[in-house]
């Protein structure tokens, strides 16, 4: 197919590079520098989709971010992405796109039947129509709506592309590279400020690319190019195209999405597809320009009806005619600029101007060019289904209420200009309370709330000279405050044509006997009649009207529809527009891909992975790893085809009979130093700490102020004023913050320093009856006998030339030691332990065996210290000092905490000694009691006792102290299990604790 709507020698596209692409399966050609939209229009394609509600044919309405219609499903390099605006997607070789929202095809769409049933689909149709009968909802309505009304289809494949995040700081962030953006960036940059200039489109310059102006004896476009190339060379300036600043957040932080590779057939190696910038700016200059707004008339959604500024952009930037027989419908001079461009390129347009007799240079120029202009004329309705074929036009009375005789004229497109709406989204997001500007019929930013200033058309300033002047000055003034420099730019000479005032006309009345749909919101199919119904039904707040009718709620967020909607509401309500107010603007200004928001934090990068220094040894020895917070820990070391159950049982059994070694590097470690260290411990832990001798360890429990157990662990006195605290893996960070809180805020008089040393030490727990013999061989120079190193003792030793700390502590109930060496020596220590331990039949054991060993000895851990239990619940009440105060002590007097039947930890054994008990199951008295069956407690941890060779669990049970010996039932509705059990002591192994002291 030929590009029959492409002009020769006009536009900024690269005609030397022809690109082929596919739309709905058909091959077309365009040029480098095209958008998908411009390339399709060049090929005469105007039907791109179907509307959301009525499935009416949809074409192109705009030429950029404001586009409400032309949304496509994009295929690129084996991936697919939904809801891409054809007006934003740059063309690349091999691009493929399809229409969305039509089924089975864009030319024959079953949903279009809605168009003929539209009487049934007025405002609030979701709320009303599908209410009755109720039974129809799931079977009929919902599937129908889902099939017929969806937008694009999200890919279910893993996205191979890379998205990155970047944090940046600058003096001035400038959003938009039109005249105000360029001028303010240039003057601020020349004054030494660090500037980021962001442009949403691929080309810099904004309206300067399409307007007939002269700045400093250059055309607007040439001036823009010279400024940009100079800015690009400046070291204090970052210039970014294809970058949309979409969100304005607290404290002048803005977020920008940079589309790095979307315009390429394939992302380059090691390049991201998109990058999200978090920019903290001292000052923000909003130079986002304005968006032309439509005039509302009958069938104004027909393909071929589009904004006049878009028609001009297609012509001047892309060399593309949106029609060869154009009708321009305008209430201001902008429509004339478009008409003049058509005329200059040999196309004869007709202008319908709602004004009676406007006088300006632009109007004169159009007259002089011989353009057919009809004053006081309007388009009553567009005619044609899939494309405009003609227009019904009529003269309109001065009061704009009466239409003259309706005539029909041939045309193939209708270019509409209803004046300009400032893009105030970012200003509004910043918290700026906007104000209504009477002379332009639109809202502009009011008083700044953050450090933001809005310039140019975004601020309702529509003349170039004034815009440039303000922008140069603002750029200079703001940069001067930051850099204290005072380099001023000389103001260039500006030549532009003066405009006449616009006509505040926005909606064409219906001719007698006609009921044309007049659309306000083109993406969500909200028509004038829908707003009228909503107001008739009593909706008043604009926020409610918006939600009831879905006006402005589509992916374009009402960029072209909001203001006309407000005009209508204010007209019906007989209020002024500012009294109606606009709905809240929220980020993102324009849709952002989920990938960009997530960035690199996907899959295994969603959190850091921490590995112990012995990790590679574990890997080489068939460890199966498990996540423990951010750590990876061996769960068990697989031998042959062993299951987790078999492997962990073997490892635990070996600890009970010979000796095992476990990597305990992940335990939290805090180094505590200072003359008041003992006093700190005495206040933080529930038991007494003032008399712990040097070279001794003690077990301690710490509470929160509300009396709930926070953590437990051992702390060792290394020397007079030096302690080594251990915490659980999970609570390590919280405990450090907790200590810092009390030292810095509550008891600053205590002379103590705390620092995390978790990563500085590698730890190995050596446990089992043969552990002392092994230890003696590891430390031949030290006396590790029961007398020299008793239970809870500590000493330093020499591990084949490596300095080591030896703690006699036990988590398994066996005779056990923990050896710590500096992390770099961790692997050396581990290999030595394994090598020397061979003769004692040593085996490494993982977290599963570790759990088994602690459960069967009744040692409480994370699943009991779960943020809901107090010391008594965990049978730790013996550690509560009566002689001193400590954090949380006062809370333990609470009535519920001292109740006679308070919950307590117990052991649970199934009566058949075979059935495993699922963790989280409930304990009940009577398994057949009617629901809700009163719950006595819950299973906190389960294991297979290697000592007794039967299942054993810990549970927290109401009145636990009186439950020992009772027969209850464990119920797990999840696993559908009912297990008769007996309650026993939680100390299932060595209840007197003789082994640890042996």
């Amino acid at each position, binding site marked *: 197919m030929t590009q029959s709507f492409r002009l020769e020698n006009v536009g900024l596209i690269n005609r030397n590079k022809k690109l082929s692409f596919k739309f709905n399966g058909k091959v077309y050609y365009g040029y480098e520098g095209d958008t998908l939209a411009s390339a399709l229009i060049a090929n005469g394609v105007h039907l791109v989709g179907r509307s959301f509600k009525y499935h009416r044919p949809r074409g192109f309405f705009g030429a950029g971010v404001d586009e409400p219609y032309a949304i496509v499903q994009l295929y690129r390099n084996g991936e697919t992405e939904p809801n891409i605006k054809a007006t934003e997607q740059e063309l690349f070789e091999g691009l493929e796109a399809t229409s969305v929202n039509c089924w089975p095809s864009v030319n024959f769409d079953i949903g279009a039947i809605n168009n003929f049933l539209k009487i049934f689909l007025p405002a609030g149709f979701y709320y009303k129509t599908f209410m009755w009968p109720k039974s129809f909802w799931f079977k009929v309505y919902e599937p129908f709506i889902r099939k017929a009304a969806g937008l694009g289809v999200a890919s279910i494949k893993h996205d191979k592309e890379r998205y990155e995040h970047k*944090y940046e700081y600058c003096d001035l962030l400038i959003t938009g590279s039109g005249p105000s953006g360029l001028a303010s960036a240039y003057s601020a940059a020349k004054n030494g400020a660090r500037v980021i200039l962001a442009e949403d489109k691929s080309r810099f310059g904004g309206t300067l690319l399409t307007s007939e102006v002269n700045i400093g004896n250059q055309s607007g476009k040439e001036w823009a190019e010279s400024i940009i190339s100079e800015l690009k060379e400046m070291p204090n300036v970052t210039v970014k195209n294809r970058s949309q600043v979409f969100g304005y*957040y*607290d*404290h*002048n*932080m803005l977020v920008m999405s940079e589309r790095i590779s979307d315009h390429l057939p394939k992302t380059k190696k090691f390049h991201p597809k998109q990058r999200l910038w*978090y920019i*903290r700016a001292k000052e923000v200059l909003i130079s986002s320009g304005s968006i032309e707004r439509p005039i509302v008339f009958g069938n104004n959604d027909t393909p071929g009806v589009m904004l006049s500024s878009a028609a001009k952009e297609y012509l001047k930037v892309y060399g593309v005619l949106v029609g060869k027989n154009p009708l321009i419908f305008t209430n201001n001079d902008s429509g004339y600029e478009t008409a003049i461009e058509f005329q200059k390129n040999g196309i004869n347009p007709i202008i319908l101007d709602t004004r009676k007799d406007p006088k300006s240079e632009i109007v004169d120029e159009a007259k002089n060019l011989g353009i057919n202009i009809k004053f006081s004329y309007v388009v009553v309705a567009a005619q044609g289904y899939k494309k405009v074929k003609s227009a019904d036009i009529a003269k309109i009375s001065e009061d704009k209420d009466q239409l003259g005789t309706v005539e029909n004229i041939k045309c193939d497109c209708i270019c509409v200009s209803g004046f300009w709406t400032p893009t105030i989204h970012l200003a509004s997001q910043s*918290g700026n309370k906007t104000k209504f500007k009477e002379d332009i019929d639109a809202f502009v930013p009011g008083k700044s*709330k953050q450090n933001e200033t809005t310039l140019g058309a975004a601020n309702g300033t529509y003349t170039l000279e004034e815009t440039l002047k303000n922008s140069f000055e603002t750029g200079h003034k703001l940069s001067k405050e930051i850099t204290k420099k005072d380099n001023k730019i000389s103001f260039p000479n500006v030549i532009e044509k003066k405009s006449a005032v616009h006509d505040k006309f926005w909606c064409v009345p219906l001719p007698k006997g006609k009921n044309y749909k007049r659309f306000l919101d083109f993406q969500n199919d909200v028509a004038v009649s829908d707003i009228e119904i909503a107001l008739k039904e009593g909706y008043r707040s604009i926020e409610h009207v918006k939600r009831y009718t879905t006006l402005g709620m589509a992916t374009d967020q009402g960029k072209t529809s909001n203001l006309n909607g407000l005009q209508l509401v204010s007209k019906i309500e007989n209020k002024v527009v500012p009294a109606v107010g606009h709905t809240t603007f929220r980020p993102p200004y324009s849709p952002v891909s989920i990938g960009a928001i997530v960035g690199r934090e996907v899959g295994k990068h969603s959190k850091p992975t921490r590995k112990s220094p012995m990790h590679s040894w574990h890997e080489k020895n068939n460890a199966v790893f498990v996540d423990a917070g951010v750590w990876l820990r061996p769960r068990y070391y697989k031998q042959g085809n062993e299951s987790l159950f078999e492997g962990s049982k073997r490892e635990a059994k070996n600890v009970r009979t010979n000796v095992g070694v476990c990597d305990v590097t992940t335990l939290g470690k805090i180094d505590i130093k200072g003359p008041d260290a003992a006093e700190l411990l005495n*206040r933080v832990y529930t038991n007494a700490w003032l008399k712990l001798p040097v070279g001794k360890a003690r077990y301690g429990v710490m509470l929160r*102020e*509300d009396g709930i157990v926070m953590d437990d662990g051992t702390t060792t006195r290394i020397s007079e004023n030096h302690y080594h605290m251990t915490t659980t893996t999970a609570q390590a960070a919280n405990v450090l*913050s907790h200590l*810092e*809180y009390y030292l*810095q*805020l*509550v008891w*600053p008089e205590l002379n103590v320093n705390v620092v995390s040393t978790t990563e500085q030490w590698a730890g190995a727990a050596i446990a089992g009856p043969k552990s002392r013999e092994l230890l003696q061989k590891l430390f031949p120079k030290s006396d590790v006998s029961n007398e020299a190193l008793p239970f809870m003792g500590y000493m330093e030793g020499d591990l084949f030339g490596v300095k080591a700390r030896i703690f006699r502590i036990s988590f398994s109930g066996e005779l056990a030691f923990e050896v710590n060496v500096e992390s770099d020596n961790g692997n050396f220590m581990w290999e030595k332990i394994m090598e020397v331990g061979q003769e004692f039949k040593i085996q490494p054991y993982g977290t599963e065996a570790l759990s088994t060993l602690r459960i069967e000895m009744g040692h409480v851990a994370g699943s009991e210290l779960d943020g809901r239990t107090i010391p008594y619940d965990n049978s730790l009440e013996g550690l509560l000092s009566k002689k*001193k*105060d*400590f954090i949380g002590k*006062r*809370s333990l007097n609470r009535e519920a905490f001292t109740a006679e039947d308070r919950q307590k930890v117990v052991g649970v054994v199934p009566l058949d000694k075979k059935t495993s008990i699922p963790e989280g199951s409930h304990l009940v008295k009577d398994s057949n009691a009617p629901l809700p069956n009163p719950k006595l407690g819950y299973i906190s941890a389960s294991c297979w006792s290697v000592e007794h060779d039967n299942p054993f669990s810990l549970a927290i049970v109401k009145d636990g102290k009186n439950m020992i010996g009772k027969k209850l039932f464990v119920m797990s509705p999840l696993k559908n299990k009912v297990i008769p059990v007996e309650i026993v002591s939680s100390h299932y192994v060595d209840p007197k604790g003789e082994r640890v002291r042996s």
Partner: protein
Amino acid sequence: MLYIKCPHCGWRSQNEFSYGGDATVKRPELGKEVTDQEWNDFVYNRKSLRGKHWELWQHLSGCRQWIKVERDTATHEIFNTLKASEEIS
């Protein structure tokens, strides 16, 4: 994302900090007898103000100091930041 001036390190983004609640709550002295009401007020009862509020933040991924921040809970405006040792005036 808030921008908080740590009195020790300077301006830093919110994601380096963790929130620590009302900075005006005073812990009863250790060993001192307190009524249930006083203890409840210390542990649980907070005003949840709309407007200016002195609160604690810890510069967790920075200097690890707890600091006092005067912030408007509705607008997020920050008026003042103090070191832990400095008294709220």
